[in-house]
């Protein structure tokens, strides 16, 4: 049982199933979705699909896109992934102004708040920086080399974020580690000064977000992990302020009583600007060594509330999406936080005619609090009510409506895709010994 589950994992890894990603323009002028090597952008201002222009290559990406991200001012969109290319797009002309080659596959991207530097992390755990100084909107840059600035020692970096004030860059990896580094004035000379390490997660860290409020302009760091917790950290000291056991507190564990057999992993976080809320996406993860598939009903999104004066995290609302097994693979919002956008999907579907699946949804009312109950008045929008309407869905999903069977078939692929992305290859003890049979420094038994 154990072996077969593992072989399945190995097999699907070869096919490189990638989860779908979403990014929202800071002022909600456009929405971008990536699935596999496909990049789709919809112009919300004019209500039309956008066609991208890239003089250097066609198609734009040759392999799965792993990150898409807008700059803080919305002038840039950066896409990167398994084809070892980082593409920087100008969002006015929708032209690729710059393609950076990476030595390894790219796993995370961050853009400095002033829009002058793009940082990306590769599969060796090295973070590189590219300066965009002197970049003009129409001019295509000549080739520029990325410079390594910091590294996690041989651990894949899952998330890269600039702090709200731009002083720090935080990086999270698959070895439970979060590093907060001072972002120097001259980044091309390297980022050597480590401000803190945030240590406490017991599984891979999958996502990071900075939260801040008027009273706390320096902000706090929030992280989500495969240990099914979301944690709140003090940035400067790296001390753990609070831990929210999301799956337990959202009632996921009690409802099935089989928590030993199933793990819930936090796969994405999205801080809702101008509020103390953090939206959390959760995946049910069955580990290869468990071997039992679990079919638990998961909520679409859990909203956590950070009380910054008490330094606590608590569940504010569980938003379930009825009628659909919608488990988001990526979340996004604009700076006005009018809508929380979600996407689920994978680049390859096993045992299905469709080649990929993407489903986009939006939630409104994140900033509306009912004066009577004090609760959030969130609504999961019907397809017709999503900004941009059916035209947007047609562009971003590839088709306006999606058959239910395809959707259900995708749920398992989504799970596998997320697992392969985040969990290290697991070997059973016997397999591990077999792999190490040539070793002669094995521990002596007493």
């Amino acid at each position: 049982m154990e072996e077969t589950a593992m072989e399945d994992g190995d097999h699907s890894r070869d096919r490189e199933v990638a989860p779908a990603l979403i990014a929202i323009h800071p002022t909600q002028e456009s929405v971008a979705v990536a699935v596999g090597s496909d990049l789709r952008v919809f112009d919300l201002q004019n209500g039309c699909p956008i066609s991208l222009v890239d003089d250097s290559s066609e198609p734009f990406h040759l392999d799965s896109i792993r990150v898409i991200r807008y700059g803080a001012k919305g002038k840039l969109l950066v896409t990167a992934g398994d084809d070892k290319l980082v593409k920087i797009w100008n969002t006015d002309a929708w032209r690729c102004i710059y393609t950076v080659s990476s030595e390894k596959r790219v796993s995370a991207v961050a853009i400095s708040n002033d829009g002058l530097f793009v940082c990306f992390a590769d599969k060796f755990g090295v973070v590189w920086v590219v300066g965009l100084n002197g970049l003009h909107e129409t001019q295509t840059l000549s080739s520029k080399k990325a410079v390594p600035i910091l590294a996690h020692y041989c651990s894949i970096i899952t998330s890269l974020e600039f702090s709200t004030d731009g002083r720090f860059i935080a990086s999270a990896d698959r070895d439970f580690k979060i590093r907060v580094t001072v972002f120097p004035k001259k980044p091309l000379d390297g980022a050597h000064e480590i401000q803190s390490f945030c240590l406490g997660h017991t599984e891979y860290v999958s996502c990071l977000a900075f939260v801040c409020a008027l009273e706390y302009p320096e902000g706090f760091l929030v992280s989500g992990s495969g240990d099914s917790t979301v944690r709140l950290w003090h940035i400067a000291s790296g001390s753990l302020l609070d831990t929210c056991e999301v799956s337990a507190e959202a009632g996921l564990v009690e409802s099935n009583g089989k928590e030993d057999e199933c793990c819930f992993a936090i796969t994405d976080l999205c801080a809702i600007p101008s509020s103390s809320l953090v939206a959390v996406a959760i995946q049910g993860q069955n580990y290869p060594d468990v071997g039992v598939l679990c079919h638990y009903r998961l909520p679409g999104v859990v909203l956590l509330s950070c009380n910054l004066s008490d330094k606590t995290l608590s569940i504010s609302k569980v938003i379930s999406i009825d009628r659909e097994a919608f488990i988001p693979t990526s979340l996004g919002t604009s700076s006005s936080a009018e809508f929380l956008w979600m996407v689920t999907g994978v680049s390859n579907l096993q045992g299905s005619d469709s080649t990929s699946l993407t489903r986009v949804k939006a939630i409104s009312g994140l900033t509306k609090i009912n004066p009577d109950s004090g609760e959030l008045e969130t609504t999961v929008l019907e397809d017709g009510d999503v900004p941009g309407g059916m035209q947007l869905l047609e562009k971003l999903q590839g088709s306006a409506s999606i058959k239910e069977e395809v959707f259900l078939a995708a749920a398992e692929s989504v799970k596998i895709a997320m697992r392969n992305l985040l969990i290290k290859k697991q070997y059973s003890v016997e397999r591990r010994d077999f792999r190490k049979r040539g070793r002669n420094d094995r521990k002596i038994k007493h």
Partner: protein
Amino acid sequence: MLKNEANPNISKTTRLPRKRFYRARAHSNPLSDSHFPVPISPSHVDYSLCYPQLFPPSKQVGNSKKIQFADIGCGFGGLLISLSTLFPETLMIGMELRDKVTEYVKERILALRVANPGQYNNVSVVRTNSMKYIPNYFEKGQLSKMFFLFPDPHFKEKNHRRRVISPHLLDEYAYALRVGGIMYTITDVEELGEWMKACLEGHPMFKALTDEELEADLVVKLLSTATEEGQKVARNGGQTFRAVYRRIVPTI
């Protein structure tokens, strides 16, 4: 101690563990995934396991001392043993990736503690990959001395990233060292000596000790004499290359 008498790995005359029963490969791949326990954070490091005489497991409070010296890749522990009596009030730890070698050092320390009551209680060893887990063991600025003696040279350029001194790892060492703390490196491989010197020279948070400072530092002399590897080099009449740097506040 009855156990020791029955243990063939322990010498009957000196009661020290015999090295030939702890033979190990000379090298270990620091890049591979680790399968030994790692403390979640520095506050999870169990001092009562490392220093049972100084941190009795029953008492939770009392001793707030922290480890100050770290010998990275301590090998058979020669330097630690010398430092232990030279700095009896300082807690020190050896970090070694090869488990058999770690076992040997553990036994050696236990035997020395028995043979010299009251001594060697400040020294300990742990099996870990220090290239990955330094922040799990030490808080920011906790260490005052770090040692990197005769590290694996990894000659091939492809394997340079396995070297224990590299520009990116120096960031982590600078994090663990307090300002003014000293980093000692020595090797018998000229190419590696130059590499380590170049890495340290190029790092904004390290500054070389002057000749007078080197002369005045008691520990510098131990680098080539106290370790098993250093003695071997001296025996064969080899040359050693040393780089000793102080952690400084970076000038921005």
